């Protein structure tokens, strides 16, 4: 094989290799397709009377640390409230009793996220100490919507 042919082959190989590296970079570093998808985790649901601007893929946090994300939002025709399904990382165990979920806003005008406040883990004897697949978080607090607050304020001022 001539040296020119060899040079061409090597450079084409390097070129394709760089392309693959670029693809991996775009996946891992840019889109952050990270461990949440490898680690299946478990899904829990919560019913909210008003989810405000919550969207699919919004983060779910405990004490401000991201532990999962919202995977599905649907309207329940019977109760007319929103059922939010979220995927949580399985390495974080959350005491089930009294656990509550709130919809908060990042900053004044930021996007919405869910904050879970874990319950107290006082008796270890119960069969169901931690959140697990298919659970529903009973206590929820709806999103605080700025327009409603202003409306209430104006209403009170008029009185």
């Amino acid at each position, binding site marked *: 094989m001539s040296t020119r042919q060899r040079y061409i082959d090597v450079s084409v190989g390097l070129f394709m290799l760089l*392309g693959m590296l670029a693809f991996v970079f775009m996946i891992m570093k*840019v889109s952050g397709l990270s461990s949440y998808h490898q680690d299946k985790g478990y899904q829990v649901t919560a019913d909210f009377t008003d989810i405000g601007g919550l969207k699919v893929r919004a983060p779910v946090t405990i004490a401000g640390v991201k532990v999962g994300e919202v995977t599905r939002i649907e309207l329940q025709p019977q109760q007319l409230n929103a059922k939010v399904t979220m995927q949580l990382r399985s390495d974080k165990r959350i005491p089930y009793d009294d656990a509550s979920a709130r919809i908060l806003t990042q900053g004044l005008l930021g996007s919405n996220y869910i904050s879970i406040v874990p319950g107290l883990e006082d008796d270890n004897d119960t069969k169901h100490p931690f959140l697990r697949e298919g659970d529903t978080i009973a206590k929820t607090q709806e999103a605080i919507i700025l327009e409603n607050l202003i409306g209430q304020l104006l209403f009170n001022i008029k009185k």
Partner: protein
Amino acid sequence: MLDKIAYIGQRGINTLQSIGSSGVFLLHVFFRKPDFIRLWPALRFQLYNVGVLSFLIIVVSALFIGMVVGLQGYNTLQKFGAGTQLGQLLALSISRELGPVISALLFAGRAGSALTAEIGLMKATEQLASMDMMGVDPLGRVIYPRFLAGIIALPVLALIFSVMAIYGGYFVGVDWLGIDSGSFWSNMQAAVDFRIDILSGIIKSIVFAFLVVWIAVFQGFNCVATAEGISQATTRTVVYSSLAVLGLDFLLTAMMIGGW
């Protein structure tokens, strides 16, 4: 007056005819039994011609475009106190739009014109005719490997473009203007979705590759076999493929954003 109308009619018929014959040409190139043993060395050489030789211009322009977007974006975002969102701005604009489109335009200028000129010269010096004479199909031996090489090379180049442009923006934003590196990447990762943003960029670049190579190869194969004809065909390749890329980009974006 009637002459002018007749001229317009003739132009219209000619345009339609050339579109039709380029479609037939595409069918002839693609619906064939590929000769893999002969295809492989030719494909490697064409990948070198089309891909590796376009590498440098893609990398350099990507770096500068990323740096400019970083600088402009930072200056505007800073007015709203959102300078840390630069990563998001960069990654979205580059992976969705600038990466596929600009690399396709550069590719049309660098590789498309070269393909047209090469095939046109082969036609002018009657190499294609003599191949035909010897019972070697020029579509299979000359056109097909170039077509495949272009379709493989442009998406790869577009990916490299995106990465280099994001690094150019990172260089300006983080190293020069002093945005925190962690918030640069985390804002980017929070905003960019693999399927919606990156995959649609890759699909775009595959479509553009197909389009640019098709135009380039067809113009070369169909040119008037004179020095002037080759120069006109080369110009047409660059003009047509730039227009087609920009126009189709709008259509693709509309399809992707409009839920598809």
